[in-house]
């Protein structure tokens, strides 16, 4: 434990006591080249043997029927249809051969754009899910990632409301069949098994446009920042990094994103904070309140009957 154990910049694997940490690994998801093919969702489901989850069925929300990250969706591709984009232009640089709804005239304002983004657990530097876990099921790996141990978790569900990004979820028992890990918290492991063998996470391997990149967090951060600068130069003023700042509310994330609009457009919080930053104050208040209760009880003894 260091003075930044609850808040501020930190090397999470070292803080967790790993002596020979191989360097922090993470994702950079560059949404400017995402084509919404959902290969990542499928590859993740297949590799991790995640049960099917139709959620709300056909939602009518663009091409998105998985709707959110959850126990059975560890990669989630968001589809946003914008008819009056706040940013003046969609990314022009990469021609992916997608059918275009835009006039060929490059100067004309697009009337419609599609934002697609593959969301995932952020593997926070200060992971609230891990902080609050009372069994030690959630742990910090040598790669600085955050992983649930299925055989330890008792399904208390505390991690679920603790996560500021709404990622982790307790898996429900599907009626009538034996669901794997039912009642247990589930989320992305950053393919702990695969990366331990030097392989790429399943989603990164399946992504045909390299929208999902895996690697050293420091290197990915730099790559992302460079790409933002490039995009900005090309006039994509909405381009920005998300999660790359070690001074942000969660101490930066292991899974970073290059977004083309505000985070909340994609369903992400604009300024997330790890709840345990405030825990020392909460304990102090609870101590004061307990003392007050005891004092009140003593006072109540004064007087008759």
């Amino acid at each position: 434990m260091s003075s930044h154990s609850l808040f501020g910049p930190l090397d999470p694997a070292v803080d967790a006591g790993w002596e020979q940490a191989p360097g922090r690994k993470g994702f950079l998801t560059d949404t400017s080249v995402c084509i919404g093919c959902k290969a990542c969702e499928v590859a993740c489901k297949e590799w991790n043997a995640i049960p099917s989850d139709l959620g709300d069925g056909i939602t009518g929300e663009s091409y998105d029927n998985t709707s959110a990250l959850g126990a059975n969706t560890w990669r989630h591709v968001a589809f946003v249809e914008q008819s009056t984009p706040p940013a003046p232009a969609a990314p022009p640089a990469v021609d992916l051969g997608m059918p275009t709804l835009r006039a060929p005239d490059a100067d004309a304002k697009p009337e419609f754009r599609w934002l697609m983004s593959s969301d995932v657990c952020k593997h926070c530097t200060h992971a609230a899910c891990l902080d609050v876990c009372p069994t030690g099921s959630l742990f910090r790996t040598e790669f600085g990632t955050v992983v649930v141990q299925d055989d330890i978790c008792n399904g208390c569900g505390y991690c679920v409301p603790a996560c500021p990004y709404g990622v982790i979820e307790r898996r429900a028992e599907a009626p009538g069949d034996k669901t794997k890990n039912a009642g247990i918290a589930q989320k992305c492991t950053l393919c702990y098994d695969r990366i331990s063998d030097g392989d790429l996470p399943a989603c990164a391997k399946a992504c045909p446009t390299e929208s999902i990149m895996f690697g050293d967090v420091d290197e990915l951060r730099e790559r992302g920042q460079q790409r933002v600068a490039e995009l900005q130069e090309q006039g994509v003023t909405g381009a920005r990094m998300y999660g790359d700042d070690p001074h942000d509310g969660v101490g930066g994330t292991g899974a970073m994103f290059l977004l083309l609009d505000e985070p909340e457009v994609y369903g992400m919080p604009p300024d997330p904070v790890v709840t345990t930053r405030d825990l020392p104050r909460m304990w102090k208040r609870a101590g004061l309140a307990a003392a007050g209760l005891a004092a009140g009880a003593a006072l109540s003894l004064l007087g008759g009957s």
Partner: protein
Amino acid sequence: MVPEAEFTSYYGRPVVKESPWQADIPAYLFTGGLAGASSLLAAGAGATGRSTLARNSRVGALAAIGASTFFLIHDLGKPSRFLNMMRVFRPTSPMSMGTWLLAAYGPLTGLAAAHEIVGALPVGTRKVLPSVFTRALQATGRPAGWGAALVGPAVATYTAVLIGDTATPTWHDASGQLPFVFAGSAATAAGGLGMLTTPVPQSGPARRMAVGGVIAEQLAQAWMTRSMGLSVQTLHEDRAGTLLRLATVLSTAGGIGVVLAGAVSRKPRGATGAQLLSAVSGTALMAASACTRFGIFHAGQASARDPRYTVVPQRERVDAGHPVRSDRTPPGGG
């Protein structure tokens, strides 16, 4: 009514997830408070020679903490793995700390209550018990009661940290004052139980504790609602709003009942009436405490389901140029 803030979301879907907790957890918040404060009341009553109030409060504390433990285990996704909570000691996890508190508090309460129960048995029945057992209880019952009274206040207030230490907007926004609300609510409940179970001539401390609890809770709630920000709305709406309004009605009625019971008991031949009033208002006060816990629970759940309560305050911080950063002090200090 605060004007609706404009904000963007992904098809109106939640940003944070609501807890998977069902009625077990608010019930746990209630019984934990009832138990913790009852142990305090029992110790005080015992020390001042109010033996019936002491006995009833000790037995009540045991029943309440028994129920608490049941709710806690019942709520788990894998109840068979309950004991996995005993494999770590983690100060950053209020649930871990709570488990250890219960592990200390439960046996102390059990001993104290067993001592009372055995003491209340007819002498003939008591003789049937092995004498080692009765002698062991004789030796440990009293110190255990003091131990329970020492840990009890923590049992009653740590639950505020339990729900406050989440990204659930209402709970987190309320976390600075919630321990005081819960302390007051615990006193209300324990006082109510004492009034319900104990003859008026002995239950003076229970009445005073209940009234003190009601006042403390109302003051703390007023402080809380003023400092919460946007999510305060969830305390007024839907199920939470109904429950919290009901809690206010019940605790006000209960409070008036307490005063009346005291007054009636001083009248000649007022004993029966006073006892009835005491029991009814005691029940109302316990119900008020339960309503407060369920109300705050549901307000939190609602705040997690609506992305407004997560996005709007964060967006406002960012737009004002004050995002949360570890290398800058926020405006207005810590």
